């Protein structure tokens, strides 16, 4: 779960990392008021996308009037597909220099990875590798100030910046651990009057750990449909094609999408009905697919823990309640395959046993329906 900039900065501030004075505004009036109190500000769109600045998501206001006007322009605008609902008004900083620092989890070493660069202010992917200082953390030891000092030295920092940076890395690691962060990033980490200030921040929380972070604000990401499917507990991603897909297991769902494209079709979604799904969630998932009004639906089930007769029951149930007004292709093999196929046949639904055949047929039917 991503956190908005203002939330991320709140967490930084709680952990003693300096941020500029700022506040959330949601109207021209509150923006004007913010300039009155803070002086010249940057008005920053609170959206969960990178490259916000270049896309016009950060503008400046020197006077209350200008604050109201700029806020009026920005609020409600669409930025890379996201509607701007809130702005963060932040005192304008006389930035002398921009650094970068972040902590993520490195999958290969299975360790936390601290990255820093003296060349911040741009996406870290755009920084040359030899300008990035990387250090892995031994999670049984953690991050102590010396770790930060060694990085500060590699960055060429001196004097107060040297010490402030060391201290900051320790605090950043506390956030990473205590908040179960997937990513905590300060970019740019600004130098203002010779001191470090977090000028922008990202904080992404591990979804699996949200249960122990009731203190964090809940941020919904994704389309309304995605949110709805996530609420029923299934993994779902909207794609831009016209063949709706359901499979059991994330790998199978990916492979099914791949198969649709392989035969020249366009998948409408990714939907993992779960590795051992029973009748009810399977029926709910299928209901979602129907509601998308695709050109065809492909259900691809390898019955391992999932029982084929359960899947068949779910299909029959949806057919006989909300109805399935689009071509439906079912591939059904594995546990209780015979019972499942019989159930479907009784309702006039054919079942494939080979994945390739089913995918090809789904693409064929979608083309016919166009």
């Amino acid at each position, binding site marked *: 779960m991503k956190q908005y900039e203002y939330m991320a900065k709140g967490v930084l501030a709680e952990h003693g990392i300096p941020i500029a004075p700022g506040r959330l505004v949601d109207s021209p009036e509150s923006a004007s008021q913010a300039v009155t109190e803070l002086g010249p500000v940057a008005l920053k769109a609170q959206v969960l996308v990178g490259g916000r600045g270049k896309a016009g998501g950060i503008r400046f206001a020197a006077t209350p009037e200008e604050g109201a006007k700029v806020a009026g322009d920005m609020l409600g605008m669409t930025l890379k597909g996201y509607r701007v609902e809130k702005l963060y008004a932040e005192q304008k900083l006389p930035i002398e220099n921009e650094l970068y620092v972040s902590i993520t989890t490195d999958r*290969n070493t299975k360790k936390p990875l601290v990255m820093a660069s003296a060349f911040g202010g741009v996406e870290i992917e755009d920084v040359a590798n030899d300008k990035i200082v990387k250090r892995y953390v031994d999670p049984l030891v953690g991050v102590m100030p010396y770790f930060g000092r060694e990085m500060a030295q590699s960055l060429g920092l001196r004097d107060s910046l040297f010490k402030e940076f060391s201290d900051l890395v320790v605090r950043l690691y506390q956030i990473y651990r205590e908040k*179960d962060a997937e990513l905590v990033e300060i970019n740019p980490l600004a130098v203002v009057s010779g001191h470090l200030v977090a000028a922008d921040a990202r904080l992404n929380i591990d979804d*699996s750990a949200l249960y122990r972070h009731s203190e964090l604000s809940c941020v919904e990401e994704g389309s309304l449909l995605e949110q709805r499917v996530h609420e029923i507990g299934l993994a779902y991603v909207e*794609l831009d094609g016209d063949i709706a897909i359901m499979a059991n297991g994330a790998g199978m769902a990916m492979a099914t999408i791949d198969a649709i494209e392989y035969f020249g079709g366009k998948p409408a979604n990714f939907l*993992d009905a779960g590795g051992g799904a029973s009748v009810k969630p399977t029926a709910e998932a299928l209901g979602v697919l129907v509601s998308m009004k695709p050109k065809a639906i492909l259900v691809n089930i390898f019955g*391992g823990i999932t029982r084929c007769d359960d899947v068949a029951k779910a299909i029959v149930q949806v057919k006989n309640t909300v109805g399935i007004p689009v071509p439906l292709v079912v591939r059904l093999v594995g546990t209780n395959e015979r019972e499942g196929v019989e159930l479907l046949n009784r309702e006039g639904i054919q079942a494939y046993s080979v994945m390739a055949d089913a995918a090809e047929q789904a693409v064929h039917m979608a083309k016919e329906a166009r």
Partner: protein
Amino acid sequence: MAILLTHQDRVIVQGITGNQGRFHTRQMLGYGTPVVGGVSPAKGGTEVEDIPVFDTVKEAVSAVQPTASIVFVPAPFAKDAAFEAMENGIRLIVMIPEHIPVQDSIDIVNRARALDVTVIGPNTFGIISPQEHTKMGIMPNHIYKPGPVGVVARSGTLSYEIAYSLTQSDLGQTTVIGMGGDPVVGQTFITVLEQFRRDPETRCVVMVGEIGGSAEEEAAEYLSTLGKPVVAYLAGRAAPPGKRMGHAGAIIERGKGTLDSKEQALKSHGAQVVTMPWQVAQAVREALSR
């Protein structure tokens, strides 16, 4: 033969009294797995499927001398269960639960390294060695058969699909192992390939990968020293960047973890890369006949 898990192992089930634990204990026993005990706090003294249940791993260790443990406890308790197993001398741990916080997995995996413990998962279907009639996991029993193919996968049902197609093509398996779908798991392709390299009966290895991370790229270089043919199938060709495809690990992040870079890396080190799962069996047959 097999890797990591044989019929000589003595398996305990942590969380044996839960629904999942009970069901899969029955399945594992049915496959022939030497399940010697279960652990469920405050349920010690009872039995599940005629298997004795203990309050603690410590108690199980002194009573039934297990070598391996499969963990079915809910995700919030998984770290505790894994440490309980490790600190009590268990040397092979299969972590079934999904949604274990990544920080917990980091702690588990790094402690396991320090203690030289093999962790499979979390968020895995487990490991099965058909020749040994032994499995620790939630995979269906009937889709495997003994044979010369080693399979290592990141994903569950997809590996079932492929293992079943191998079995139907009369290409049996030495061991099929699921590394798990989470960003941080105990094994890498390299650690598993190294096991397959040392197993004389494994004559060909199938890698089932997917988008996200760089596990496949890291593994590619190792292939040169494997000395056995590798067939790779990777899922997620059509996945858009920035979208998590079910698995917490399966996401193309800012240009990293794309299928293309993975396939290129594997090909350049001699792997036979197929584009669709149903092409795996044929590629394995060709590799074995060469």
